[in-house]
């Protein structure tokens, strides 16, 4: 192999054909509320941990739908389960259980 000083860079795109839908349906079975998210971002805006470290349940859900498991776990890793997002969620999503479920199903 020759080093040209440049090469193929990985795509930042999301290929939904390869995204893991089975695990996501497992999550949806454990916490069906995950399907109700309409991406309003209230959870992210109110997040206590978000004042310190990028934390966004909305993005995490999106990442999981897009098959980006590691990104989802990372963006939830600072969560302190304070429950503010549950209070502000207009769709009444049980966000704390959703976060715990994500960690349980996708976590190590």
């Amino acid at each position: 192999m020759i080093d040209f000083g440049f090469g193929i860079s990985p795509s930042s795109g999301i290929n939904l054909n390869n995204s893991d839908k089975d695990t996501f349906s497992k999550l949806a079975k454990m916490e069906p509320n995950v399907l109700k998210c309409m991406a309003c971002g209230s959870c992210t805006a109110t997040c206590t941990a978000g004042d310190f470290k990028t934390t966004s349940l909305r993005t995490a859900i999106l990442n999981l739908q897009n098959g980006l498991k590691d990104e989802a776990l990372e963006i939830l890793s600072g969560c302190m389960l304070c429950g503010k997002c549950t209070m502000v969620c207009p769709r009444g999503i049980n966000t704390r259980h959703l976060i715990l479920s994500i960690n349980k199903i996708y976590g190590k």
Partner: protein
Amino acid sequence: MKNNILVIGGGAAGLEAAANLERLGYNIILIERDKQLGGHLAKWDRLFPDGLPAQEVLDSLLDNISNVKCFTETDIQAINILDKSFNAILSNGITVLADAVLMASGFDIFPAAKKEEYGYGIYENVITNQDLEQMFKQQQSISPIPRAIGFVHCVGSRDEKAGNPACSKVCCATAVKQACEVKELYPDADVYCFYMDLRMFGRRYEDLYLKAQKSGVRFIRGRVSEVAQTADNRLLVKAEDTLSSKPVRVNLDMLVLMAGMRPSEAGHKVGIQLNLTTEDDGFFSAKDGMLSLQKSKLPGLFYAGACTGAKTLPDTLHEARSAAMEIDRYIKENFIKK
């Protein structure tokens, strides 16, 4: 003697207005360019948000026009104003002298092939919302059983380059309704809706959205940029997931384009003969946008339905009824009172 009223267009607006005018005692001549009455309603299977069969609605509308003179497969060849009345020569040779004219020419569905990048007419499995309704209506199933189906919102709507910067109002709800129906038929299929904004503005529309979400329909905020065919004859669809700011691609077995509404070409031709003004979007301009929505600037010519812009079916029916009231008042003031 009964006053003649000419209704141009036999869709939901024309039928409902004709029925009301008939009840008010007028002599109605209704012309329809198609073979059958009902306009787009006749081509639809079920209606949002509750899934009411379109045929039921159409049948009720048709039940009320027993004394209306309907000419189907008929165009207006020429129309002009004689004194206070309208003189129309129809393509079947008949001349109509009417004291008032109701434009209910409705809309045309955006020709989806114009969005070349979506490949309508190029790829077999790219269809439009209307095609899907036809499939539902004829209980045609998709074979082989699809693994993934996509819906593209705003095809020919909110698209300056496609000639329509406006929202077509009904496509979001239609797409979500159709997504639910498809998910019911093929529960194992992945269903995607590619939307820019979800405009679920009406009563129970949001419920429909929630129902779709709960059934597992995936909503991706981003307009589809292009469609291509893969080696195994599936569709490769590219869009941006704008919520995560990442390009997204997915292989689908069917793509449904939510073709929007544009002004009826046939209606437009009639409009030119009468010098009716249109707004930038090509739809007729009402006398004013608030208090005289049903009136045109031309005395005796009235509007109902989607000829003055995209409307839902209930809105169209409301307009038809109020147009009937306006026409009644106009006739009474100008022809009967003296």
